[in-house]
C-alpha cells in the first residue's frame, strides 16, 4: 500500500479546496441560507407540520442531502477531470499508485469536503429552526455513505467527461431534478397517485427519506430500504471505477 501516495493526493485535493474556499464552502452555505429564508421562514410559517415535524425543520435533511449530492459530484468530477484536461494526469499515471489507492485519495478528499459542508449546513440550520437528531449514528452513517457514493459517481463522471459542459450536465440535468422531486421539500406521501408510486423509482427518495428518519424517526420508506439502496448504488459505482482502471478507459491510450 502506497500510504504516502494516497496521503499526498488527499492533501493536494484538500489544499486545492482551501485555495477556492469561497467556491467550495461559502457559496453552498449562502444558497442553503436562502432556502431557509424562503422555504423555512417565509413559506414554512404558512405550512402545516408534516407528521410531527414543523415544516422548517422538515426540509433540513433534504437540504443537506441536496448539497451533499451536488458537491460530492462536482468536487470529485473536477478533481479528476482537471488533471486530464491540463495534462498533469501523466504524473498520477506514472506513479506507483494502484487504482484503489488513486480512488481513495480523490474520493476520500471529495467526500471529506462534502461531509464538512454538510455539517456546516447543519450548524447553520440550527440558527433557523429547532432541530432534533434521534439517531445520530445513523445520521453520520448516511452522511458518510452518501458522500462516498456520490463522490465515486462524480469521479466516474470526471473520467467520462471530454469537456466542461459534460461536467455540469449530469449534476444539472439529472441530480438536481431528482433531488427536488425526491422529497427534499415535501413528503412523497403528499403526492396523488400515480406520482407517489412513480417517485419510488427515484433513488434520491430513499436517501432523503433515510436521512430524515435519522433526524425525526419518520421517513417515506422504511430505513432499511434506504440503507439497502444506498449500499447498492455504492457497489455499482465501485464496480464501474474498478472496470475503468482495469481497462484504462479514458485515462490511458
Amino acid at each position: 500500500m502506497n500510504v504516502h501516495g494516497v496521503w499526498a493526493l488527499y492533501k493536494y485535493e484538500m489544499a486545492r479546496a482551501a485555495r477556492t474556499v469561497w467556491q467550495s464552502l461559502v457559496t453552498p452555505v449562502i444558497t442553503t441560507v436562502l432556502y431557509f429564508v424562503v422555504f423555512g421562514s417565509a413559506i414554512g410559517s404558512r405550512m402545516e407540520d408534516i407528521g410531527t415535524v414543523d415544516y422548517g425543520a422538515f426540509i433540513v435533511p433534504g437540504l443537506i442531502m441536496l448539497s451533499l449530492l451536488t458537491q460530492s459530484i462536482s468536487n470529485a468530477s473536477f478533481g479528476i477531470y482537471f488533471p486530464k484536461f491540463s495534462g498533469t494526469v501523466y504524473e498520477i499515471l506514472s506513479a506507483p499508485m494502484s487504482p484503489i489507492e488513486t480512488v481513495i485519495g480523490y474520493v476520500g478528499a471529495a467526500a471529506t469536503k462534502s461531509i464538512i459542508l454538510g455539517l456546516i449546513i447543519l450548524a447553520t440550520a440550527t440558527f433557523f429552526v429547532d432541530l432534533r437528531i434521534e439517531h445520530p449514528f445513523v445520521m453520520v452513517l448516511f452522511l458518510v455513505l452518501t458522500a462516498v457514493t456520490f463522490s465515486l459517481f462524480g469521479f466516474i463522471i470526471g473520467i467520462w467527461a471530454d469537456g466542461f459542459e459534460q461536467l455540469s450536465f449530469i449534476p444539472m440535468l439529472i441530480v438536481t431534478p431528482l433531488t427536488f422531486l425526491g422529497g427534499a421539500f415535501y413528503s412523497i406521501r403528499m403526492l396523488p397517485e400515480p406520482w407517489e408510486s412513480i417517485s419510488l423509482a427515484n433513488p434520491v427518495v430513499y436517501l432523503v427519506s433515510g436521512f430524515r428518519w435519522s433526524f425525526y424517526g419518520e421517513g417515506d420508506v422504511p430505513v432499511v430500504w434506504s440503507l439497502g439502496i444506498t449500499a447498492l448504488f455504492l457497489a455499482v459505482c465501485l464496480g464501474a471505477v474498478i472496470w475503468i482502471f482495469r481497462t484504462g478507459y479514458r485515462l490511458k491510450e
Partner: protein
Amino acid sequence: MAAVVSIENLSKTYDGGVKALDSVDLEIEQGEIFALLGPNGAGKTTLISAVCGIVVPTGGTVTVAGHDIIREYKKTRGAIGLVPQEISTDMFETVMATVRFSRGLFGKPKNDAYLEELLKDLSLWDKKDAQIRELSGGMKRRVMIAKALSHEPDILFLDEPTAGVDVELRRGMWRLVRRLNDKGTTIILTTHYIEEAEEMADRVGVIQGGRIVIVDRTDAIMRQLGKRQLSLTLAEKLDAVPAALCGWDLELADEGHQLVYTFDANDEDTGIPRLLRAMDEAGIGFTDLDTSKSSLEEIFVDLVHRENGTQAQGEGA
C-alpha cells in the same frame, strides 16, 4: 554492462489505427546517457510513455531493473522519474508544495532536507515559495525536473528537454544532465537535435516510423554520417571485385551486375575520378551510375532540416 531497461518486441497501435511503435527492441545500460534520436512523430514519446505506464502497449514486454512494468508496476515506476515533453503541472501550487507532492505520490516519506538540496542544485531554492505560474519558462522546466527527481529515482527519462529552448538554456540543461549522470542516474533523453545526441549521449538509438533503425555508440553513429554510395551498373557481370580495384571500398550487388562504392561525402577526395579511371584501365565498362545516401543519412538530413527550422523559430521568439 547490465541492462537496466530492457524492451522486447514493444508495439503500440493507437485507437485511431496509428502504429506508433513497431516491434521495438532496446536495452538501456546502467549508468549511461542514452539519446533516442528521431524526427517528430517517430514514436519517441510513445516509447517513453509505454515504459512509464502512461500508454498501454499493444504488444511486447518491458522490464526495469529486472521487474516487469505491468506485473510489478509499483517497483518499476518507483525507480523511474519522468520529465514530460510539455510543462504540465498545477500552476497555482508553490514550487516546494509540488515537489513534496511528487515525492509523496511516488511513495517516499517526507524528506525536506533532500528536497532543499535538490532545489538548490536546480537553482530553484529562492523560488521555493513562489507559485509556478510566476516563474520563467526555463525555471518551469527545472521545476518539472525537480518533480521527477523528488523521489530519488535511479532512471530519469527526459522527453525533448531542450525543444524550443534557446542556446543558453540548452547548454545549462546539458550541464545539469551530465551532473545527474555523474551521480549515477541512468538518463534516457529524446531529441530531434543531432547536435544534442552527439554532445550528450554515450549511445544513440535512431527511431523512425516506430522502428529503431540503429543503436550504437555515439561516435560510431556519427562516423556513419555522410556515408554515400555510388552504384555502377556493369556492362558485364563480375564474379568478384577485381584485384586492380582493391584500393576502394567496393562490393558487388545484384548478383554481380552492380558494383557499389561506399565513400564519405565529407572527404575532400572522394576517390571517384580515380576509381573510374582504374575501371577504364582494367576494361570494366558500365552502362549507368547512381549515387544515394544511406537510409541513416536520409533520416539525418530530415533531422537537420527540422533542426534548422526550429532553431530559426526559437531565436526569432
